[in-house]
């Protein structure tokens, strides 16, 4: 079986700083994969290499076997990537439903000429309303994004990404900034999406939710692959624990202090 997304040997340097070195992983169709790592591990740089915001100095990213490493972001999106960003960025001049409708009209916005020749929005709007219902914010469809709490805007990001009919959904810290209840609910929504057949990569700091919902984990540390595999096994790995707790936190020293 070919991987849906394959990242191989990706190296990204910003000046003298190496953000990623020879990092990579594969994603099989239908998977819900958690991408983990302590702060500064290179998760967001990995995400940006996949989305095309950052071009790696070495390595290759392929989607369904086609290399996309040199493509600009909008073309990667057209090949099936749906992105929900860490910092919510709704179009603030549009209502919630209009934000999603624009994404749902991706076939009509492919080229300026096609876009100029089309006016009807009803089908896309209907689809947008369905998606808002699916992520649980249909009651604020006509609201201005500026008046909504973060939890709803995070859901708007997800709905907008889904409206692109992606083959692969990339979620960059969708739970960050949400309270326990909201995070649990959005995590449940993510599971439901995955069960409906969508492949998802989840970058997340909220370990308890990641362990609860992801089928497989990839852990990065200092820009390198640290571990990969089934969630419990990965978290039991001493190297992963050291990366998360810091190498200074050795049990011996604590005993000595006491």
């Amino acid at each position: 079986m070919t991987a849906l997304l394959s990242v191989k040997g990706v190296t990204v340097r910003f000046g003298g700083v190496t953000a990623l070195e020879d990092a990579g992983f594969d994603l099989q169709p239908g998977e819900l994969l958690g991408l983990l790592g302590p702060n500064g591990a290179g998760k967001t740089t990995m995400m940006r290499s996949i989305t095309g915001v950052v071009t790696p100095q070495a390595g290759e990213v392929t989607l369904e076997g086609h290399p996309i490493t040199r493509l600009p972001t909008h073309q990667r999106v057209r090949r099936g990537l749906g992105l929900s960003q860490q910092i919510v960025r709704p179009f603030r001049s549009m209502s919630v439903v209009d934000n999603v409708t624009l994404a749902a009209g991706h076939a009509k916005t492919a080229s300026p000429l096609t876009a100029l020749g089309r006016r009807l929005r009803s089908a896309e709007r209907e689809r947008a309303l369905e998606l808002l219902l699916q992520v649980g914010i249909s009651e604020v469809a006509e609201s201005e994004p500026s008046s909504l709490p973060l939890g709803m805007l995070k859901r708007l990001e997800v709905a907008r990404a889904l409206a692109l009919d992606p083959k692969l959904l990339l979620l960059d810290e969708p739970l960050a900034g949400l309270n326990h209840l909201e995070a649990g609910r959005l995590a449940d929504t993510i599971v439901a999406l995955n069960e409906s057949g969508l492949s998802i990569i989840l970058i997340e700091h909220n370990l308890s939710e990641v362990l609860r919902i992801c089928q497989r984990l990839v852990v990065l540390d200092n820009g390198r692959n640290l571990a990969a595999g089934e969630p419990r096994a990965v978290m039991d790995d001493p190297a992963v624990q050291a990366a998360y707790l810091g190498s200074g936190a050795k049990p011996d020293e604590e005993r000595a202090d006491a």
Partner: protein
Amino acid sequence: MAYEITLLTAMGISVIFALSLNLITGFCGQISLGHAAFYGIGAYCAAMITKSGLPFPLALAAGTLLAGVIGTVVGIASLRVRHDFLAITTMGVGFLFLGIVRQQDFLGGEMGLSGIPGSGLSKAGFMLLVLVIAAAAAAFSLYLKRSWMGYVFDSIADDEDTARMLGIDVSRYKLSAFAMGTALAGLAGGLYAHNIRFIDPDSFGFVESITVLAMVVVGGIGSVWGVVLAAAVLSVLPLWLQFISDYKLLLYGALLFCVMRFSSNGLAGMVTALAKRAGGRP
């Protein structure tokens, strides 16, 4: 009657010119402080063509095309700059145009081009032509605003990085706006040259760029009716009242300041706000 015809013709040309900038700045959110350069390119190109004995319609078409082509090239060169930097870049383009035209003897240099042939139409006929084109430009703008292209322009004006994340080829859309807007400015320029029948570099200077920006901003960025109204009023005021003509820059500067400070959506924004308030009452 002749006076009214002159006024209406000047007004119509200003409306076309303002609508052309509205496509770029109003719809697509890309500021331009050098739009008069494309007005000038259309005017000079059309004037040179009728002066060489070729027909007026061909001159208008050529002026439109040349302004659109140069506008696209400038657009490609400025794709990577945004906001304040785009303002400075486009201002530079405006000065570059003036600098080049002033040095070219075949374009009349500082003295400009005089003795431009007439359009072949009567005064009233020319006015009708101008008004029909202005109405067509307004109708096209209204259509565009409601099309998917207008929808995409809204998103680019709002946040172009996010637009990319939705699969939108931001560069191509921006270039489309530049091409359409500068071509329409070129058309307005060709009409202007054959209305006044004399052009010089000063007719397309920085003051003209600011004047047309004032029309778009005062009317309400992106609002077709607001821009048409503002362009109509702001273009005839200096013709009507001599003292306004003397203090034109001062008036436009003050208007720009007041709109930005008190009603950043211009006249259209004020009307919407008033309508909301009136509708909100029991």
